[in-house]
């Protein structure tokens, strides 16, 4: 449905450079990137509001460069809503709507029916975003472009509206591309994540893949991976490492086994990484903590001492110092309480070789 090939565009001093990715019809794509990475500019180019300086934009299989925005079948929602202040809420939602059924469904689903008689000036930031979503959906677009559309909503409404957008996306077969800096949102919503920084695509793919297998340490850190260690990977090769049974050709369907040396730690990993200097990424959720040595399938097991415990609702992040290297583990707060985790406590951190991603 959307295919960008070598797309470049300029907006003021900012430039998108050589952006290439594709999003299937009916898929939900999520563009993740820091402020100023070009997320909004990317949406504006796809919407036809900004002309590319190079490359191509294909929408629905056709070159869209000569197609004006009004003929692209697009709904665009900006973070700041941009409701027309001289029109009422009803007039805003009805602005581009040609289908009474879509108008009713959009207003109902986005929860703006009680707001229809109101003036735009009196709306809160969250209400504005809901009206902007309804306005874009009331036109029943083929492609929905969303620029941080839930940022001003309170948590309860955010969950509700997010669910409704996702439901409409499925029911209408709506191809959707959403900009966010919220990784949880990206994981929840997206069939595909596109990571953008300084106008370039750093990585794209299924969110789980991007999160688990970041293409670079920068991507890993950007995506919130707490444990990114620099070091050297050594291919364990056909030496039949003691922790893998069987002939080399049978190892993990062609994946090779590595020992990764980092600041006095040796991690075991499997993958198709080229040996040499690199980084090991372990997500905090992959690390488990025990009060003593246990026998389980994890190949990486390190004794250390808790140096910090940070609780945020049902989630607790525990920092363990292992031979001078901090490792962060994410636990449920209940588990942390049951284990009586506190600073100074001696613990064992463990994780599987498959949880170590080398890049």
């Amino acid at each position: 449905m959307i295919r960008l090939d070598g797309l470049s565009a300029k907006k003021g001093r900012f430039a998108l450079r050589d952006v290439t990715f594709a999003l299937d019809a009916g898929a939900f794509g999520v563009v993740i990137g820091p402020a100023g990475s070009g997320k909004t500019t990317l949406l504006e180019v796809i919407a036809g509001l900004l002309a590319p300086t190079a490359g191509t934009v294909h929408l629905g299989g056709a070159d869209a460069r000569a197609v004006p925005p009004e003929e692209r079948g697009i709904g665009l929602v900006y973070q700041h809503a941009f409701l027309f202040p001289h029109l009422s809420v009803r007039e805003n939602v009805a602005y581009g709507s040609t289908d009474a059924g879509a108008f009713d469904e959009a207003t109902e689903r986005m929860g703006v029916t009680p707001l229809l008689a109101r003036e735009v000036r009196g709306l809160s930031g969250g209400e504005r975003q809901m009206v902007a979503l309804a306005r874009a959906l009331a036109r029943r677009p083929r492609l929905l472009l969303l620029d941080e559309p839930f940022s001003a909503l309170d948590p309860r409404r955010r969950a509700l509206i997010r669910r409704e957008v996702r439901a409409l996306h499925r029911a209408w077969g709506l191809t959707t591309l959403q900009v966010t800096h919220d990784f949880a949102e990206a994981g929840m919503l997206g069939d595909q994540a596109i990571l953008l920084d300084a106008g370039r695509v750093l990585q794209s793919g299924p969110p789980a893949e991007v999160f688990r297998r970041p293409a670079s340490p920068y991507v890993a850190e950007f995506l919130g991976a707490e444990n990114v260690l620099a070091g050297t990977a050594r291919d364990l090769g056909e030496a039949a490492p003691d922790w893998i049974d069987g002939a080399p050709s049978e190892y993990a369907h062609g994946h090779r086994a590595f020992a990764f040396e980092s600041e006095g730690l040796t991690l075991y990993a499997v993958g198709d990484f080229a040996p040499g200097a690199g980084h090991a990424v372990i997500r905090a959720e992959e690390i488990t903590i025990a009060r003593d040595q246990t026998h389980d399938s994890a190949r990486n097991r390190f004794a250390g001492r808790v140096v910090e415990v940070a609780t945020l609702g049902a989630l607790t992040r525990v920092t363990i110092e292992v031979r001078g290297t901090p490792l962060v583990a994410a636990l449920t707060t209940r588990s942390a309480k049951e284990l009586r985790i506190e600073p100074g406590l001696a613990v064992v951190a463990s994780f599987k070789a498959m949880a170590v991603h080398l890049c």
Partner: protein
Amino acid sequence: MSRSRALPRLLSVLAALAGSALLLFLAAPIVELVGVGGAEGLRRLGTDAELRDSLLLTALCATTATLIGAACATPLAYMLARRDFPGRAILSALLDLPLLIPHPVAGIALLLLLGRESAVGGAALELGLRIVGTPLGIIAAMLFVSAPLFVSGAREAFAKVDPRYEGVARTLGDSPWRAFRRVTLPLAGRGLLAAAVVMWARAVSEFGAIVILTYNPKVVSVLSYDRFTSYGLREALPVAAALALLALVPLTLLRALRTDGASER
């Protein structure tokens, strides 16, 4: 009192005094003029047919010039506010030029362009249109000296409207023209109206260019000058006061527009 506190206070007092002095300098002559000649000016409106006709002619010509200026300058102002193109700075400077040259010089330049000896003036005469010495000459002079003010105000009004409003309207099915008409124009409307009021006020007060192009029929500024040179201050005062009162109309309108705009925010 420490020196660090005394200096800012002294500066505040000096700033207040300087501002008050300027305000007094600007307001005092007008207040004096209206105070001395206002009542007589209003009385003369009932008895002095030439003054009445002159006021009507001034208002009509200024309104016509403003309408022509607004119609022609609005697209130009929009382009200057929205588009980045080579030569934009030069075009802007050219548009400001009439504000910088002395108005009698503007009148002479217009006479060269529109006089019966010129190509444009000659062609207009062929079509039966005499410009110099007619209300058309007054309108031309008013347009020349006041249209740049409209362009400047309108450009600012358009620049204040975030282009993303238009972008959203385009994605909602509007062509560029339709998005301009349905979104940009209403959002910039108050600023455009304020620019038109400023242009109208400037046109009403014009003298230098008009007196060269069309001495007769007389607009109020020319009439007050004529009465002053022919009959002295006593006869010129009521006319001048009437012109000052006429100028109060757009000023009041402008203030009202700005107050409404401020209350909306």
